[in-house]
């Protein structure tokens, strides 16, 4: 885990003091909302449908038990007893008082967290692979690199007022568990001739104009990475459109000028930037990397496991993934109980996950973009104890990557931008497919719901995606098939006319029934869709 140095702590503390004074002036009537709004947004404080919402950054989704417990404390003391883990690997609190916001930021600053750059037209929280440091397939731990990018991008004076928000993901494996190709910039660490470097992608994103990123450079040496990113951002900052919010993302710029021309300009800029000495010395990367050193794994940890409890065995098969260290496993804690609210966790549940991380997982937790929690380093011998503890607080749903493991944005129940409610629809779908055997028979099926075109629920990247729209004051849902945010990245296609809430649940069942009829061998749903195309599904849905 990264630990703040004196500079990190000083800038975060200074920001808290600054925001406290800004809030004081707003409450005293010395500032208008127009004057105050950009200031509160810089500190992650939105005004949503019912109240202020505070989004706290979880850098690359990694946190320790002390930080997790603090989130439970915030939920209990300042909110209404729960928090919402987001598709950006952050957490949001939905019922924050403006007058409490400075105190909350002061409390989280004590445990090395903040809400800086969780809003606004700047570089947002860096996302990464939730299995970082535990996965056998990574070429390196991506987190030291993500941390370096975080430090470079925090309060970067040139990139604090970009044309639009900017999202960066860092991964280090061919299996993409972070939807990297759907970020403004994607960084994949790779080895070439024994040297670690990065493959750079740019111009991806979801929203109203979804695009898959282009490979811009097949290899950037480690010592050049910050300069190269600087060049990528400079070209975007210079030419990205500021006249039209809907055309301001880097994906539009690259689409309009072409990937080749963008690459040419980046290379030209890189040649100039590289002379400026922006790249940190190796010693700095080594200092950061040392903080992410592997925990003290036991070399002889037993690998045997008692599978006699059938429910435990199902959970093992579905939610537990192999670890790079023999005798250890990666545990995925589903925040998607049948009928629950995707991504929500109560303060008590947050405390239990923190306790389990401290006792069994070398004090580490991860937030996933699929709105689940990972305990990355669990001894195989401890899996049963962890499962028992999770089951006691309703966190042992064995549905990872199944149809009920639904990504859903807060939707019209909470969000002032939304046009339709995502959560009740997610609940209805999960209840329709509640039978665990049926879910497992359907296999990997990633269902993602957004309550508006902004696509916080990643509907474009769902094997099955749903987009809520407002049709003359009534909620309506469009159905999409064939998307993926993984290494087989693709964008879903709309099936046809939209549905009511109940209608779209029925339509999904017709889609899954069709899949079962036409699938071959071990095909996943998305494989079958790619083989047979839209027509059989469309025929089943619309007749």
């Amino acid at each position, binding site marked *: 885990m990264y630990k703040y140095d004196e500079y990190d702590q000083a800038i975060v503390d200074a920001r808290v003091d600054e925001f406290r004074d800004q809030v004081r002036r*707003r409450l005293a009537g010395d500032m208008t*909302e127009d004057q105050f709004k950009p200031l509160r947004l810089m500190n992650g404080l939105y005004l949503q449908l*019912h109240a*202020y919402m505070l989004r706290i950054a979880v850098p690359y989704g990694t946190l320790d038990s002390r930080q997790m417990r603090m989130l439970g404390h915030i939920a209990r003391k300042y909110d209404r007893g729960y928090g919402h883990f987001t598709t950006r690997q952050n957490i949001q609190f939905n019922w924050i008082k403006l007058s409490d916001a400075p105190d909350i930021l002061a409390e989280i600053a004590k445990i090395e967290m903040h809400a800086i750059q969780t809003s606004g037209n700047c570089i947002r929280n860096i996302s990464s692979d939730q299995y970082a440091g535990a996965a056998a397939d990574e070429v390196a731990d991506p987190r030291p690199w993500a941390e370096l990018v975080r430090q470079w991008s925090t309060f970067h004076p040139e990139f604090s007022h970009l044309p639009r928000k900017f999202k960066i993901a860092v991964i280090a494996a061919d299996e993409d568990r972070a939807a990297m190709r759907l970020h403004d910039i994607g960084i994949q660490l790779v080895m070439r001739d024994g040297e670690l470097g990065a493959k750079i992608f740019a111009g991806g994103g979801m929203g109203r104009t979804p695009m898959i990123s282009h490979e811009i450079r097949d290899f950037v040496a480690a010592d050049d990475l910050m300069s190269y990113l600087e060049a990528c951002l400079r070209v975007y900052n210079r030419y990205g459109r500021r006249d039209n919010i809907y055309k301001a993302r880097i994906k539009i710029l690259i689409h309009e000028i072409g990937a080749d021309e963008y690459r040419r300009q980046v290379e030209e800029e890189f040649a100039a930037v590289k002379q400026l000495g922006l790249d940190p010395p190796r010693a700095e990367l080594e200092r950061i990397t040392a903080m992410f050193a592997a925990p003290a794994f036991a070399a002889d940890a037993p690998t045997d496991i008692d599978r006699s409890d059938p429910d435990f065995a199902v959970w093992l098969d579905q939610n537990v993934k192999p670890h790079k260290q023999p005798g250890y496993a990666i545990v995925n804690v589903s925040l998607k109980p049948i009928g629950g609210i995707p991504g929500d966790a109560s303060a008590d549940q947050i405390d239990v996950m923190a306790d389990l991380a401290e006792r069994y997982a070398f004090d580490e937790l991860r937030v996933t973009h699929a709105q689940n929690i990972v305990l990355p380093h669990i001894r195989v011998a401890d899996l049963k104890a962890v499962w028992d503890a999770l089951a006691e607080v309703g966190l042992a749903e064995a549905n990872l990557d199944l149809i009920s493991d639904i990504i859903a944005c807060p939707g019209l*129940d909470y969000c002032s931008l*939304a*046009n339709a409610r995502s959560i*009740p629809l997610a*609940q209805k779908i999960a209840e329709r497919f509640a039978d665990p055997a049926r879910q497992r028979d359907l296999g990997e099926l990633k269902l993602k719901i957004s309550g508006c075109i902004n696509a916080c629920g990643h509907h474009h990247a769902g094997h099955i995606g749903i987009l809520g729209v407002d049709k003359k004051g009534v*909620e309506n849902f469009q159905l999409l098939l064939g998307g993926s945010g993984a290494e087989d990245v693709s964008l879903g296609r709309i099936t046809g006319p939209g549905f009511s809430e109940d209608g779209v649940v029925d339509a999904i069942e017709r889609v899954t029934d069709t899949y079962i009829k036409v699938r071959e061998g071990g095909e996943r749903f998305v494989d079958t869709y790619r083989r047979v195309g839209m027509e059989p599904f469309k025929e089943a849905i619309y007749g």
Partner: protein
Amino acid sequence: MKLVTGNDLPSGDVIWWTGNGWSRHVEDAVDAGDHAEAIARAEEASRRVNVPYVIEGVATAEGPRPAHIKDRIRALGPTVRPDLTLKPADPNAGNWVI
């Protein structure tokens, strides 16, 4: 009918113009009619209320209700957490939202 709504500045709570002040309960709202925009502007200028604005409402036997689903959800609270709505003890709370 025209309803004036906004958010309480320190708490962020959704509030409704009652004719002589603000309430957290939409039942207390009044039809501000032709004066709605002027009331919103005056309240904005006083800097006590966060971004007051005017919405369409409808009169019902139980009092005024917002016309659009988004405003109805805003008036009651999240439909998925009845325990967090303004009137959790009322079994009919929420029936008018959707």
